[in-house]
């Protein structure tokens, strides 16, 4: 199958390299700006009436949790493109995406745990959301492990892409079933965070941080794809040199 015309620029590694050479640093600079402003506004918010100063953790936790899911969507879309259109660049994108997504997922779990200790009195509770994010991290790790253990790169890429798509079909089921399991077991305390509605003072830094995280993800992803393409080029060149 051929790629639709609008996406064709993705199929040309040279073109991608040219575009990403200036796009990656631009998005990276944007990320630094957004994160700086987000943190600055974040530190100025009044302490929450219930949570006190720990509400600040929200600004680094919630965007990480959001990106953990966004990362899997990117992984699944790249895997689909690489599987259906047999696309080297999409495969590189999927490979570059997985450790990033796993990193943001681990960050979400770690910051969540740090937030949980003062709020719930425990580092970890088997709440529905925590559990499904943990399973998401396991999905990422399974993908990375599968990809790393098959030596032939093309094969590894396609097997991992199949797994990523199976995971994408399964994640909503996991998410739903874990929620269902949690209501069965009657969650032990109230996990409503930040009160019923989020006031604007909290919303603005949160949005800035979310955009900053997303920009950071995009910049890092582009850099990683570039590195992967360079690695492949270097490999091809060294194989050619060895043949001569």
């Amino acid at each position, binding site marked *: 199958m051929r790629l639709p015309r609008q996406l064709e620029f993705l199929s040309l590694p040279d073109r991608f390299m040219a575009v990403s050479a200036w796009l990656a640093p631009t998005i990276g600079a944007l990320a630094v700006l957004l994160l700086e402003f987000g943190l600055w506004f974040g530190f100025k918010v009044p302490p929450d009436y219930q949570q006190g100063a720990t509400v600040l953790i929200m600004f680094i936790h919630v965007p990480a949790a959001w990106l953990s899911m966004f990362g899997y969507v990117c992984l699944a879309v790249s895997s689909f493109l690489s599987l259906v259109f047999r696309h080297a660049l999409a495969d590189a994108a999927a490979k570059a995406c997985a450790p990033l997504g796993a990193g943001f997922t681990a960050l979400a779990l770690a910051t969540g745990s740090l937030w949980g200790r003062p709020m719930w009195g425990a580092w970890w509770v088997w709440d529905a959301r925590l559990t499904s994010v943990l399973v998401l991290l396991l999905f990422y790790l399974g993908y990375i492990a*599968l990809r790393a253990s098959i030596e032939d790169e093309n094969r590894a890429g396609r097997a991992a892409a199949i797994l990523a798509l199976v995971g994408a079909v399964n994640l909503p089921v996991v998410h739903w079933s874990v929620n269902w399991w949690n209501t069965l077991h009657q969650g032990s305390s109230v996990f409503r965070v930040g009160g019923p509605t989020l006031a604007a003072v909290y919303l603005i830094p949160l949005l800035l941080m979310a955009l900053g995280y997303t920009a950071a993800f995009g910049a890092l992803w582009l850099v990683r794809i570039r590195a992967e393409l360079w690695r492949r080029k270097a490999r091809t060149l060294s194989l050619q040199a060895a043949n001569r």
Partner: protein
Amino acid sequence: MKGLNALIRRELSLAYGGGGGPLLALAFYASLVALLPLAAGRNPQMLGAVGPGVAWLGLALASLLSLERLFERDYEDGALDLLAMGPVPLEAVALAKAGAQFLAVNAPLAVAAPVASIALAAPASLIPMTILTGLLGGLAFAFVGGLGAALALGAKRGGLLVAVVVLPLFAPPVIFGAAALDAARNGSSPVTGLLLLAAYAAAAVGLTPIAMAAACRNALD
């Protein structure tokens, strides 16, 4: 059709004959169950609280054992190449393989599960539900596990890899089966959990052979 029959017979005899067949999984299951009281204490109340859950989870773990060889054996000796060229589509081959795996490993485990469950201080009234969840869950474990085995074809350290790939996918069936067992023990209706487990198993039986065949083709070309 004739080819499919021969294939099913072949897969069944391989699954029962090769490497101890169901006995290996059963022995693993028994050892796992025997270790629980050693770790958690023999207080019947404590055991009764976690016993049925551990007996259920043990089924998922024990079903992982022989998965590694499910496709790998045929891949190594070239039989998978022949099967791929043969008249039976690879999807049907995958279906037959995972089905044979279910009959040789998961079904005997499901029959053994009540013994383990009772040894772990579960009430005897839980026997039918334990077998039923074991059979339905076993279908899901065999087919999803088979997918993991097909994906790991040609990988280094295949066995551990299959477990890492497959165990997160077991989360929904484990939840549904545990909910059915829990409901049966508390005297409420286990139907919801059972239906969800059956739905997951049906989806696994229907969909994973397609992915297994794709994974095999990828490993072969």
